Structures are given as C-alpha cells and as structure tokens.
C-alpha cells in the first residue's frame, strides 16, 4: 500500500469530510457527516511494540488522556509504507504540518521510528475513540492476516478472495456484502446472508477466510452469544 493510498483509505475509518489538508495529500470530499469527539489514529509499522509504547505515552499527556480508547492490530501482507494517519472529528489531519500538541508529538515519534519508510509484512495498528456505529470497511482476512480492506462505498461487483485451498467470491451490493460462491465443501458461508453493520462478519472456516465490517458496533452490546 502506497502512502497516498494508505492515507486515502484510512480517511474512511471514520465518517469523514476530507478537508483542511495541506499540499501533498489528496483532497477529496466524501460528503459524510462530521461527528465530534471522535478520532482515529492508524499506523502501519514494522515495529509494533515500540510504536505502541510511544503512542501510549503521547495519549497519556494529550487531550485524549480521558478518552476511552480502543486498540486493535492486524497483520498485513506485502509491501506498505510505514506512517501515521490521524483523523480528528472527521477530518484527516496532516500531522506533519498541524500545530496541535498531539501532532507535534506524532512528528517527534515519526522521526524516532524513521517514518515514512517502505516496509514488508508490517502491522496495522488502529487506535480509535468515539462511537460512529457506521460501516467503514469490509476487512478481508485470510489465515488471520488482513489481505484487503474494501471501502463500503466501493462499486458493486464480485471480488475474488484466495483462501488456503480454494477461493471464495464476495458479492458487494451497495453497502452490504455476502458470499456469492465458495469452493469449500461445507457451504455454511453461503447461508450466512448479508453483512452491513459494524461487527458483523462472514466466515469460511475451511478456507480460513473472514470478512468483517470494521468500525464500532452500534449500541451498548459488548459481545453477542449465538
């Protein structure tokens, strides 16, 4: 993933109006409502432990010290650009030029970690706060590695995903996704219906493929028994 693509895709982590950007970053209006008290810091890094430690320190002394922050980590495959992407209140913030204390700390940390730089098979770390309850991505993982993030507003069509033995075809229709076909024998994945809300997922165990709608689950339910 190129830096430009990383920043572009990361901006969709929250419902975002992409604005206020400095030169060098893509300017695109997504036309979704801005929400207050929300932020997301996405990081592609080849040194997850060191990065986490640094970012924890930033949070401790930042305006986000009292926020309830969620953290998740994904293994990525292939070549990527290690960098930060910060979204605050719906806006992608160019931390390299922004004057806030938080951005200053990020700049310092980026220097320490030699960001941006090309890395292979890194980790994607996501720190976020605020409850959007709105779908953002269809996250596709194979053998517990994130191989693709398909924005929910992407064009309709069939997406092929290679599993551990065969393949699965994912049908995206509007803001929902369902399994169109699978080479597995069980075929339970074909009966799972559509997913469209954060926290919902489709799983094909034989192929070790999971597709989940990223984002914060709506409402106050923490976990679902089924």
């Amino acid at each position: 993933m190129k830096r430009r693509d990383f920043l572009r895709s990361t901006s969709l982590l929250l419902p975002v109006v992409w604005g206020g950007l400095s030169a060098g970053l893509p300017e695109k209006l997504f036309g979704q409502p801005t929400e207050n008290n929300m932020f997301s810091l996405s990081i592609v890094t080849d040194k997850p432990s060191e990065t986490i430690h640094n970012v924890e320190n930033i949070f401790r002394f930042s305006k986000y010290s009292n926020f309830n922050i969620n953290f998740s980590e994904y293994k990525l495959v292939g070549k990527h650009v290690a960098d930060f992407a910060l979204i605050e209140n719906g806006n992608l913030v160019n931390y390299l030029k922004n004057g806030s204390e938080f951005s200053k700390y990020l700049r310092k940390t980026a220097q320490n970690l030699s960001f941006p730089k090309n890395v292979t098979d890194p980790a994607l770390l996501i720190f976020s706060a605020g409850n959007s309850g709105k779908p953002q991505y269809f996250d596709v993982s194979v053998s517990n590695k994130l191989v693709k993030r398909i924005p929910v507003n992407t064009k309709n069509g069939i997406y092929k995903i290679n599993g551990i033995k065969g393949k699965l075809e994912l049908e995206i229709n509007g803001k929902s996704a369902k399994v169109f076909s699978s080479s597995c024998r069980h075929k339970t994945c074909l009966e799972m219906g559509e997913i469209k809300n954060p926290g919902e997922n489709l799983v094909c165990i034989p192929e070790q493929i999971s597709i989940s709608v990223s984002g914060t689950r709506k409402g106050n339910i923490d976990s679902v028994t089924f």
Partner: protein
Amino acid sequence: MRIKFPNILSSIFIIVILITFTENLSAQENRKEYSVSVNKILMGTTVETTVRSPDINEAKEALLKAYKEMQRVENLLSSHKEGSEITFINNFAGIHPVKVSLETLLILKNAINYSQHSKGLFDVTIGSVSNLWGFSDENRTIELPDSSQIDSALKYVNYRNIIINPKDTTVLLKNKGMRLDLGGIAKGYAIDRGSAVLKNLGISNFILNAGGDIYVSGMKEKNTEWKIGIQAPRDSKKIDAAFNLKNYAVATSGDYERFRIINGVRYHHILNPFNGYPGRLSESCTVLAPTAEEADALATFLFLKGANKALADKSIKIPFLIITTKGKIFYNSIFNGKYKPEIM
C-alpha cells in the same frame, strides 16, 4: 539542646517515601486503560477477545498466550485432527485402551457426568453419527445420511461404553465403531483455559467470545458491567435479548451455526443421541454457568430437551433462555431473577 539529625533525616525520608508511594498509588489508579481487541479464526470458529489494560503490549502478550493455550486445547481434543488424543482414542476403539493425559481424562469424566445428568441427551459418543452428517469435519460436505446408516451408527452411541481407568490414565471405547465427538464441550473448556491464562497474567477485565460461547471477567468500566446480547436465530443482525454479566460464562447452542438446507429442510449440527437427527424443539438455547465448559454442555442438552420440559424440570438450577422453533422466547425464573434479561 542537641538536634538529633538522624531522627529528622529519617522523618524526612519517611515523608518522602510516603509522598512517592501515594503518588505511585494515584498514578496506578489514574493509569489510562485501553480496550485491546483481537479477532482470530481458531477452533473452527472466530475467537474475539477484548481486554481492558493500561499496557497494550502486556495485553497483547497475554492475549497471544491465551490464544496459544486455546490452540493447544484444540490440538488435544479435536476429533478430526491427526495426532490429537481424542483421535487416538477413536482410532483404537474396540481394540485397546489408549494412554492419555490427565487433562483429557478429567474432561472425559466431566463429559460422562453431563451425560449422566442429562440422561443421555448430551453424549460425547455421538461421533459415529455426527461423522455421517459431516458437521464436525470442515473438509467434508454436510450430507443427509440414509436412515439405515443412522440406525447402524446409533448402536455405537452410549457414553456408558467409555471405559476410563484413572490408575494408568487410559481410555477405551468398548466397541469398534465408537467415536468421541467433544464438539459440545471442548470449545467451552478451551475458553476456560484461555480465560485462566489471561487472569494468571494479571488481566482481570475481559470478554472472551469463541463462536458465541463467552466468558466475562470483571467490569467493562469502573461502574459498568459487560453487556451480552443473544442473537436472533433467523436474523444474525438482530438481538433478541440482552443482559449484564460479570465473572461468569454464557453459551448458546443454535440450529444456525453449522447447517445445510436440503430440499427446504434445515439440517443442523445439534444431533439427538436417541434418534441421530437434528433436534427439532428449539432454534437456540442460551445457558449461563460458572464455567464455559458447563454452559457449553448444558446448552446442547437443554436445546435438545426443549423449553417445555426444561421449564418443568425443577432440578435445573442454572439460568437459561430457549427460543423455540416457533420463535417464542422462554426463560426460567433464575435467569429472570438474577439477570433480568431485556427482551428486544
């Protein structure tokens, strides 16, 4: 008057220590906590865990160890993995006893206990029948067997024919053709083991969900308990009921987890050990228990027993909620009294 410097110095020293200690205490109390989430495919399902911790790297390390432990349990108890102790027992059914670990022995003893309490409605020797259907093996196609095949396989379903010898820790399945299938207990046990690892590593607030079977530890936030939703059987996006939980397990058996529609009929993985066919009285059954193993086994049992008989059985002292095949929700007074489920 001579000033006793040492005493003053020691007082200052004590004050300094006290201040430092108090500051440390307040720093500990005010340490920022994160919600660290992991979602992985494991044990033939998705395992989703969220822990509350002030140190993300420590939480990650603990989660890694917990997932390794659950993987170990899967390798030990899976009935379709080569090299598992259960596979060994199955391979030598009717031939000779198999030496197993004390852990496997104790799990099988527990399984037999559940079978006795359920009068055979929960039976881990269901393997000969479930193998015919292909529910347990992800590399097989789910098929509708001939009734004659089911009748033949049913002859090998009887938990009383598991011969356990605690002295030399061996297990023998009495008849050739018998097969253990720990699908109704192994996942719960793995959750308990994963939870124990997290607790041993100092993580006290977490929620571990393996394919809908859950252990909840501690609190979500200082004054907020974790909240669990029960999925609607015919609409995975809908929640039928919700309740708060703390330091307890919950498991659901549903006819929508592993199933196949054949000629318009839903055939699912919760098989009745008496007739070899999927249970037809419930769409789902949710049970709360101190351990996930217990909740897992009892959810299977009560799913097959059905709401009417389960509610009438006064010997059942655990909270449960059953959604019938007509979509009606029933729960016992223990569930209602202690957990006050919010029906949606």
